[in-house]
């Protein structure tokens, strides 16, 4: 399966079987987020709020203090309009609410710039108490979702749409601990989400050019695995790749750790400025914004020069 949302929808149902307190909130996008599967299986534990993201977040707060485990799923972009509610209630009161932002990055390529969320990592990783997770593929989505449901406290799960790579097979990922996808000593590549697939493609080609690269899946953006980042800084430099703005995103998070703990050169690959556009092909948007295998190879070669 190469779909984040299918994996998310299926896993929610699976978790729901053994967790009677799990409830799912929708803002009239359940067909898109795949929470429709949960609604069909557990209609009494599915709450439709209509197109009302702010209402949905505060309603989730009420459900959480009443002992439920609310999972609110919606398009990442439109959940961000309720950032203040998330900040002032879910984060401040440290509530056990899970927020899943689907269609993040350029994954909603057809709908264009209004729907393409390039800012959610920046907005969510600054919130106290929050765990912020961005799985690389379907298997990681299933594995990390079940872990964030087990962990009491607020969580933001950043998901794409159907743009998942195939990174993991049956491996278990550990929340809060970066996964090493390739070992190497020349340059470190750090990424999260679907761009890890591009990193692995680049690593193949770099290997044939004689470069060995460490590849880290930093799926947990908060709390950050500082230890793994510091180790990555032992190479000749770090290239961070993300389907997000370079300002405030994963690259910034890595740079914060590296500059304080072990200064090293960092190249950030991501959206530099401006907005997306609609595109018939997802990959075309990545190319337009320089999130490509070629950019990574160039960055690694520059660091090795």
């Amino acid at each position, binding site marked *: 399966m190469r779909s984040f949302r299918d994996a998310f929808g299926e896993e929610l149902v699976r978790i729901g079987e053994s967790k009677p307190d799990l409830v799912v909130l929708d803002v009239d996008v359940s067909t898109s987020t795949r929470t429709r599967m949960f609604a069909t299986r557990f209609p009494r534990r599915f709450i439709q709020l209509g197109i*009302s993201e702010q*209402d949905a977040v*505060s*309603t989730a707060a*009420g*459900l959480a203090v*009443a002992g439920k485990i609310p999972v609110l799923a919606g398009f990442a972009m439109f959940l961000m309009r309720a950032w203040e*509610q998330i900040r002032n*209630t879910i984060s401040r009161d440290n509530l056990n609410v899970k927020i899943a932002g689907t269609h993040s990055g350029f994954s909603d390529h057809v709908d264009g710039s209004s729907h393409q969320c390039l800012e959610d990592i920046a907005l969510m990783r600054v919130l106290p108490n929050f765990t912020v997770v961005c799985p690389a593929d379907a298997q990681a989505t299933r594995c990390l979702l079940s872990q964030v449901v087990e962990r009491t406290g607020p969580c933001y799960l950043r998901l794409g749409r159907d743009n998942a790579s195939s990174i993991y097979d049956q491996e278990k990922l550990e929340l809060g601990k970066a996964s090493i996808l390739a070992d190497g000593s020349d340059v470190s590549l750090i990424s999260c989400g679907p761009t890890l697939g591009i990193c692995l493609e680049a690593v193949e080609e770099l290997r044939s050019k004689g470069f060995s690269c460490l590849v880290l899946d930093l799926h947990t953006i908060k709390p950050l695995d500082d230890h793994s980042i510091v180790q990555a800084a032992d190479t000749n430099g770090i290239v961070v790749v993300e389907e997000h703005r370079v300002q405030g995103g994963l690259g910034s998070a890595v740079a914060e750790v590296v500059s304080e703990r072990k200064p090293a050169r960092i190249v950030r690959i991501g959206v530099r400025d401006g907005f997306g556009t609609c595109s018939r092909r997802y990959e075309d948007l990545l190319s337009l914004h320089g999130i490509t295998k070629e950019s990574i190879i160039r960055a690694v070669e520059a660091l090795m020069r």
Partner: protein
Amino acid sequence: MDDDFLRTVRRISDKLGGNHIYSSLSCADILRAIFHVKDKNDVVLLSKGHAAPALYAVLMEMGLIDEEEIEKAGTPSSRLQTHPERGTPGVLLSSGSLGQGLSMANGIALAAKMDGVRRRIFVVLGDGELDEGQIWEAAATTATYELNNVIAIVDRNGRQLTGPTHEIKIKEPLAGRWSAFGWRPVECSGSPEEEILRAIDLAEETGRPTVLIFRAVNVHEELQRRLWRGAC
């Protein structure tokens, strides 16, 4: 409102910066009445969080917070922040940012209905915060799920931060608005305690969510006159 209670609200308000005495006075009797009639399992949410002095005065009267705590109110180490925070007795969710309490009430009410638990949620709204769109998103949710365990109470004091409510943004016809959203509005002129008890019965009978509208326009002016005159 008796002079002792009025004095307490004012004293707490002074410790919290004194910016919202007007808003605290207009809902003090309402909050007091809710805490008198509520069952142990019921929840009170002060959506208009800036009226915290009134809430703290009620909690003090009930013996849930003591004089020593009131003395420290508004300091960094005190639970009694200028706007109510979770962890304070009687405060299930923090407020301070306006327009969000009704959604929270709905969440608690939905959970109670799912679990078959008898629990009423009283949510006190300011008339000014009705400017927030989220209130009306939430009002539609309450009606959609027929949450008759939510009792909303609007403190219609006619004022918001920078002027009379009708000059800032129109609020009327207020009962008509709630009615159009599927609620049962009740214009209140009697004692808050009686009105709230009646509303509880009404909600059970009709199965619809009920909103009480307390028009306190003159009440708080009279209270303020008493305050400034030095009667208290």
